[in-house]
């Protein structure tokens, strides 16, 4: 499938300026980044020990947390100016998330899990969503889309989660330790899929990870330490 060009440029590049995130009771900011730019379609690894501000950065980049100070602009949208509801809508439309613990919902099939975010975000599924979900599941190697999620292996589950992240053709894919809870082979397969699918769709890919083999395959690495970027 050729890269999706309809949304290119508008959302995929990041311009982050003078962001400082403080939490109550802490003297030093959890995150302080004077400037960070990521180009559209770029594939970036985010590294750093726990407590380095990695999770905070991801929460800010995905709109899960409100930007305390500074500006965080994806394409033409400054997340710092959006309300919680608006950030939710923006995230639903633009971000595909892959999490360490999959967060798939038992009792639903693989296909239903892939479609769940869209079902919850709007009343009716957009036309073609079901076909796209089926195509993505086939692409990540899930042969039976109707299989109940709780009967799958962990590697299969994370592949379903990857398919779910891509279901809305997001401009940005964010993966938080996508391979950390998998064995080496499954982790490698998931890493491969993430890179391939992000490349195919042209989405900007951000991966927070400790996985050295995954970091090695990403062209750009951001290192965080004590809330600051090291270069």
């Amino acid at each position, binding site marked *: 499938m050729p890269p999706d060009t309809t949304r290119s440029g508008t959302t995929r590049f990041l311009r982050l300026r003078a962001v400082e995130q403080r939490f109550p009771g802490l003297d030093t900011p959890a995150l302080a980044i004077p400037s960070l730019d990521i180009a559209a379609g770029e594939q970036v690894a985010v590294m750093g020990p726990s407590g380095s501000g990695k999770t905070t950065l991801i929460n800010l980049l995905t709109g*899960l947390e409100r930007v305390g100070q500074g500006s965080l602009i994806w394409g033409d949208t400054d997340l710092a100016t959006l309300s*919680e509801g608006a950030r*939710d809508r923006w*995230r639903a439309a633009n971000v595909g998330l892959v*999490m360490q613990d999959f967060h798939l919902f038992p*009792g639903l099939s693989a296909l239903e899990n892939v479609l769940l*975010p*869209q079902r919850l975000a709007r009343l009716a599924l957009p036309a073609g969503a079901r076909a796209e979900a089926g195509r993505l599941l086939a692409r990540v190697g899930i042969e039976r889309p109707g299989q109940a999620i709780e009967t799958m292996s962990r590697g299969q589950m994370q592949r379903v989660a990857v398919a779910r992240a891509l279901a809305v053709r997001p401009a940005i894919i964010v993966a*938080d330790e996508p391979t950390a809870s998998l064995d080496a082979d499954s982790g490698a397969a998931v890493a491969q899929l993430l890179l391939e699918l992000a490349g195919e769709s042209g989405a900007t890919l951000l991966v927070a990870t400790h996985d050295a083999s995954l970091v090695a395959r990403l062209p750009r690495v951001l290192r965080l330490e004590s809330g600051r970027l090291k270069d």
Partner: protein
Amino acid sequence: MLRFIAADLRRQWAGALAILLLVALATALGVVVTLQERALRLGSARAADAFDLVVGAPGSETQLVLSSVFLQAAALPLLPGTVLAGLIADPRVAWAAPVGFGDFIEGYPIVGTTPALVEGIGGLAQGRGFARLGEAVIGANVGMRLGDHFHPQHGRVGEPGGTHTEITYHVVGRLPPTGTPWDRAVLVPIETVWLAHHHDEADAAGAAGTNPFLRTGHSDATHEGEAPQADPPEGDVHNDEPLKHEVHSGETHAGDTHVGPTHAGETLEGEAGHPDALDAPIRAESLSDPHAPGVPAIVVKPRSIADAYKLRQAYRTDHTWAVFPGEVLTRLYSTLGDVRLVLSLVASGAQALVGAAILLVVTIHVVQRRRQIGALRALGAPRLAIFAIVWGEVALIATGGLAAGFALGYGGALALSSAFSAASGVSLPVAFVPGDLARLAGLVLAAAIVASLPAVLAYRQSPAAALRG
């Protein structure tokens, strides 16, 4: 979203079912109390419908109504025969009939009365009324058939007593179902009850005291013995002046310790030795006879409402006491209402506690699922969708529980009512009224409001939680 709720509930069906059952049981408790109290009220009021006015000897009004309307065994003081004679002759009275408690047959009370009462409580469904001393009319639920013969027994089955083998009744008619204790009654001529009773008395003192209805007047208690049974002095009797007579009879009897066969009784007893004696036709005159033996209660149908009040006034004397069963029941209901209030409060308390416990469980559950809820948000579910999921699940379980509770309560009330009916003959109509619907709606509304608490909690949960450790 519904699919998700369904999957979620299916996954946790055991917990959901437990909560649903708790809600259902707590609701059923309140519903049973409400329905049963209403059924008791409707059922007893219906049973008292045919009885406008009841006259008895002074004593407990409640006991008089319970005994005459509900046929509950109790030792009632007897009225002198002159009272019945006076009432029958009274122009303000449409009909008056004695309710004299006889013995039992297979646990069914035998009630001595007159054809007037048979007509008064709804006529006959089958056969004909009793016309001879040995004939009986049975209530709709009495386990006998037309043409059956039976001997009355002292006391209920299993209680000490004897069989009046010398008396044999022949069933000639059956009453239509009335939903009252009279469905379980066996109606016989009052004269036969007098006869059986008198025969007993003459027989020996051995069986004395076993029949609470009949023994009263004959126990050795002097007060009860003196007034009703003894002969009133001839000179004092004026059928048209019962009240005046009453005043006198009490005085005269104080000195008259002779409790003996009455004129009417004497005749009957003389005949009782012969099997043919019971073949004699009943005579209306024997009731009007001022020498007739006493009865514990007289049911009176006044000609008009005004007459009813006048009669009640006229028969409230030292020796007679007239009551409106409806009035006595109303007083009972107010007591019943208090009981219901207490039970309702207990039931409401139970409901509130169950509600609070469930709220706690659901809240803990929501907190435990913080990460899952956070993940839903992170994946793009709007906050409103989260609210709707949690609210929908809680409201669904609670509403299901409430509906099941109403059904359970209705079933429970039906079971209680039928058990009560089987025992007493009073049919208790279990029915919902529109107010119950409003109550259900109120409870559903309350559940909806309560369900929004954990939903708000979920709504406010940070989506970033999903990505934290």
